[in-house]
């Protein structure tokens, strides 16, 4: 099959129709493949100002151009849609994407011959979608409705056969909790935007896919040579042994500083949630398809109340951060809670933080029993879990919480910015806080787009303390133009020796590239793969001749389409607001922690961050005041043919 021709399969759940089409080669030349082309389709399918829960909303699931090959870790699936999470007080919703790996789903989509799976409409009754090579069927799901994410997947594998990739939702998605997640192969979440709720709103319980057609490569020998070189490089990485032993848990030495919530001392946190504790529940690592590092694991609680309980995914960051926030000292209790959240198919970060926030408000007298519908909000594990159930099931007070931060604000007149950790922008709480981790480029993307972290942008600079040489090497290996490199490293008073705003533009574009290719950003995060490597892989698989800088241009096109779609929804610079929380020092047992610049030379002021934002828009060629793409930029990128 010609890898320059993407194949789309579109299913309308309202009338059960299935359409397939091949997308023109020019799409690959402009948007690479996978979610790059997916965004081009989004511009075609997503009409202005629709309700995310209306049948008109689409879910565009895209498997990256390298998925299904031996390119290390290329397993990523990206879902594009209008997010159910309420982004602003006047009811705007962001059009965004979420990315996750997996062992079966993405690779099977590709083996069945599809690059993009578009789902629209709404079924009258619960259904699941079954794709097996050319066959596409909508099947009755009444027997599995109400079941958890993992039970749903297991049941379907039992009925349909074991070799399917499964995307499924749990009760939280069925109940349209706005921060419900979709899970791939029970292990990897498409999280944060509320894709689970979107599936629920469409009465779509699961998607299963199996394929036997394979992924062909234009220049096989060349492709294998590049794969072999990357393979050798990854094997020589000194931290690999640690990662394949403990998965993402290996990140603790950085994590304990960057994600520190400031409630306990770091020593206490280390004792209760450090690596020693992590090893106590570790069963084995579970890499995604073709990955040589492995960040996912299978865990098992070995003793205590929840002895014997197992789960799949990456539980340690979540349990450690929320464990500290909620003052739960027994790590097994938090691991158990992660298991419950994964079964329910709900965003653990958002849920636990909302629970923390409302409990605090109640204790401070800012929420009354009348507000909570008679519910007394107490501190303690049991009360938290009771409230968790209410959110998942949208019972009583839980029904309001299930609508997220902005609804809380509207209902009770409380300001989510008063929540004491991480920060919130466009209705989404961030995974971590700039005060603990310094103002690095990922922090920028927390407010330039609402779904950061893995789906956001991962490059070397996401950990503090990288040298200027390392950063320079990275931008050069992605083929960033000389003039831009000069701008990135021209010192300013607001961003020091490294211009975070200007750099962020390229980092976002690189992320668009990685998602379009399905390449995992863990490799770019550790400097194990760069744009030049990805360009070689892409050239060999498609037969096109591209360099890193060509990929970045495609990434920039994709970034601009995303922005244009959201500008149409009413998002401007006003919504890219700096979280006020970051401007207030965090009082912690470790002392006062303030948002410092990347190299920790000074405390960042609001003016500094605004100036960095100016630089970001300027580097993008957007109107700096409005924060929107200019006509000239759209023309230069040759995306003026898209009507938005």
């Amino acid at each position, binding site marked *: 099959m010609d890898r320059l021709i993407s194949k789309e399969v579109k299913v309308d759940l309202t009338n059960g129709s299935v359409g397939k089409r091949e997308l023109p080669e020019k799409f690959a030349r402009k948007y690479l493949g996978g979610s790059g082309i997916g965004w081009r389709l989004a511009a075609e399918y997503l009409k202005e100002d629709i309700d995310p829960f209306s049948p008109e909303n689409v879910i565009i699931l895209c498997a990256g151009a390298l998925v299904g090959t031996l390119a290390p870790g290329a397993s990523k699936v990206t879902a594009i849609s209008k997010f159910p999470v309420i982004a602003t007080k006047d009811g705007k919703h962001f059009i965004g994407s979420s990315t996750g790996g997996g062992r079966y789903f993405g690779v099977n989509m590709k083996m069945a011959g599809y690059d993009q799976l578009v789902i629209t409409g709404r079924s009258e009754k619960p259904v699941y979608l079954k794709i097996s090579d050319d066959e596409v069927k909508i099947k009755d799901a009444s027997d599995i409705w109400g079941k958890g994410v993992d039970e749903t997947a297991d049941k379907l594998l039992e009925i349909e056969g074991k070799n399917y990739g499964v995307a499924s939702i749990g009760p939280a998605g069925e109940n349209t909790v706005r921060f419900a997640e979709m899970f791939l192969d029970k292990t990897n979440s498409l999280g944060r935007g509320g894709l689970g709720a979107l599936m629920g709103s469409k009465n779509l319980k699961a998607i299963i896919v199996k394929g036997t057609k*394979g992924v062909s490569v234009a220049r096989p020998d060349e492709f294998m040579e590049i794969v072999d070189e990357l393979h050798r490089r990854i094997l020589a990485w000194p931290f690999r042994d640690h990662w394949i032993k403990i998965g993402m848990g290996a990140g603790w030495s950085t994590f304990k500083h960057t994600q520190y919530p400031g409630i306990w001392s770091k020593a206490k946190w280390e004792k209760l949630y450090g690596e020693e504790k992590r090893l106590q529940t570790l069963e084995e690592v579970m*890499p995604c398809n073709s990955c040589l590092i492995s960040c996912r694991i299978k865990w098992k609680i070995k003793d205590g109340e929840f002895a014997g309980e197992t789960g799949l995914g990456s539980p340690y960051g979540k349990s450690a951060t929320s464990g500290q926030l909620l003052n739960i000292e027994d790590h097994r209790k938090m691991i158990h809670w992660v298991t419950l959240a994964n079964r329910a198919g709900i965003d653990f970060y958002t849920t636990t933080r909302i629970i923390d926030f409302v409990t605090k408000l109640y204790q401070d007298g800012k929420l009354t029993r009348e507000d909570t519908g008679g519910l007394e909000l107490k501190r303690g594990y049991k009360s938290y879990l009771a409230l968790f159930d209410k959110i998942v099931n949208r019972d009583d007070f839980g029904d309001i919480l299930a609508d997220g931060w902005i609804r809380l604000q509207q209902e009770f007149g409380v300001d989510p910015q008063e929540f004491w950790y991480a920060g919130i922008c466009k209705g989404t709480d961030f995974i971590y806080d700039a005060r603990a981790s310094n103002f690095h480029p990922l922090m920028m993307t927390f407010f330039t787009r609402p779904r950061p972290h893995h789906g956001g942008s991962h490059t070397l600079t996401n950990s503090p303390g990288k040298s200027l040489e390392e950063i320079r090497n990275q931008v050069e290996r992605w083929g960033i133009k000389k003039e831009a490199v000069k701008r990135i490293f021209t010192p300013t008073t607001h961003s020091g020796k490294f211009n975070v705003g200007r750099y962020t533009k390229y980092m976002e574009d690189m992320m668009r590239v990685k998602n379009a290719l399905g390449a995992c950003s863990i490799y770019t995060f550790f400097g194990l793969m760069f744009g030049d490597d990805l360009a070689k892989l892409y050239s060999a698989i498609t037969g096109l001749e591209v360099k890193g800088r060509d990929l970045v241009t495609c990434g920039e096109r994709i970034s601009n389409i995303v922005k244009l779609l959201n500008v149409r929804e009413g998002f401007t610079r006003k919504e890219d607001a700096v979280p006020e929380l970051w401007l207030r020092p965090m009082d912690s047992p470790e002392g006062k922690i303030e948002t410092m610049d990347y190299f920790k030379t000074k405390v960042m002021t609001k003016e500094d961050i605004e100036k960095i934002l100016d630089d970001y828009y300027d580097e993008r060629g957007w109107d700096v005041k409005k924060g929107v793409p200019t006509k000239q930029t759209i023309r230069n990128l040759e995306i003026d043919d898209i009507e938005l």
Partner: protein
Amino acid sequence: MSEKIILLNAEKCTGCRRCELVCSFAKEKIFNPAQSRIRLLRIKESEKTVPIVCQQCVTPLCTYVCPTKAITKDEETGLVTHDPDLCIGCLMCFVACPIGGISINPETRKPIKCDLCGGDPKCVSECEYGAIEFVDLDEANEKKREEAIRNIDDLLKIITEKKE
């Protein structure tokens, strides 16, 4: 030269599927687990995977049931080879194999099986989790014994704990 065998260690298999991908690519120039000679069996509840591949049996049942002598054992090298030109696709070999070491190629509907890549099995070079090794018979025995001893150690621990 002593004979080498593929030594599978299901315990160590993580399910990354690099073995299946490289095998299909080496043999068919396409990435397609369905066309791989080595396959991972998925145990759905635990999400454990177990690699399975032809073990080049001493008494290969596949060769006995093949009506066209498409599958034969080379007595010198020990390799059980399949000749697709002689093969009529009756799939008796597939039926007879007691370990599931023969697969059906969905493209040709004929059996496919491992030929050890002429002495340098690609799946072995791709497996970085220690689940697939290509070792001398002696070494295989040694490795198995070491593993068994480790298991006994665990077993003894459980027994002592129970006594206490």
